[in-house]
């Protein structure tokens, strides 16, 4: 049962992905060590998600703790219809969203300065070249990823939240709308504006010249 626990911590490598059947056994067994191995294996990824949503370390950790406790309580009901990782991720997201919803909503801020501008005839006011510095091997670099995350963090809360829920955590439009207390159509429009704004924020990184 604990075989996967010793496989290292590199979740990006296929070779270290634990066998799903082992994970399910770890979840269902009444073996504390097996559950702890599960907590250690998935905890980092879940903490990354709750930090992105909540941007508050204590709340993010609380959400992860609540998620694992809730997963433990309902472990016998886990059917295997979803992967263990997907199931845990969903529980953690829900725990984070509960906290997010309890916060007072602020009025929507404008991001017009970050949106593309157009001439009177409807054409772009700006010329866009190709991003010479946006090859895949640049995009995966640690410093590029950090730059992109910092750009997301610079978005006003409402726009950052919609990008995090839709693009980072993979919620669908309806789930995102419900989480944010807006209509699905408003969530779609907000997401698109957030992505346009993010394009503006990351552009300096990719337009060439010294990084």
């Amino acid at each position, binding site marked *: 049962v604990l075989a996967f626990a010793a496989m290292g911590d590199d979740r990006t490598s296929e070779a270290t992905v634990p066998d799903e059947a082992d994970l399910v056994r770890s979840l269902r067994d009444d073996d504390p060590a097996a559950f702890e191995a599960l907590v250690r294996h998935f905890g980092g990824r879940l903490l990354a998600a709750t930090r992105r949503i909540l941007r508050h370390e204590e709340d993010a950790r609380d959400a992860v703790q609540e998620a694992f406790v809730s997963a433990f309580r309902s472990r016998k009901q886990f059917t295997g219809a979803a992967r263990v990782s997907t199931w845990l991720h969903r529980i953690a997201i829900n725990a984070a969203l509960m906290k997010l919803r309890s916060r007072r909503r602020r009025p929507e801020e404008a991001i017009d300065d970050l949106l*593309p501008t157009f001439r009177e005839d409807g054409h772009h006011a700006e010329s866009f070249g190709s991003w010479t510095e*946006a090859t895949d091997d640049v995009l995966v670099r640690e410093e590029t*990823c950090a730059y992109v995350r910092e750009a997301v963090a610079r978005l006003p809360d409402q726009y950052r939240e919609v*990008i995090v829920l839709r693009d980072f955590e993979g919620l669908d439009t309806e789930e995102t709308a419900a989480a944010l207390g807006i209509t699905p159509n408003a969530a779609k429009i907000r997401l698109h504006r957030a992505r346009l704004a993010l394009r503006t924020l990351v552009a300096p990184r990719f337009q060439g010249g010294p990084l």
Partner: protein
Amino acid sequence: VKCREAAEFLSDFLAGTLELEVRTDFEAHLGRCPNCRAFLEQFRTTLRAETLAGRDEDARTVMPEELVRGIMAVVGKRRG
């Protein structure tokens, strides 16, 4: 379709959810507007950069030892 409208369609175009008629007009605009083609590519790259930045953060985030211990303490009590 002008650039102004085309810019509104990018997310739906990439998600494959544009209605056929709108998509046809959008693609016709792209065919004659290199600036919108470049803008679409930048937009697409932004989404890819988001995905990779998220995966990088997921893989890089370390589960704090005290959080593991806190969870196991609660779980241990519930197990009774």
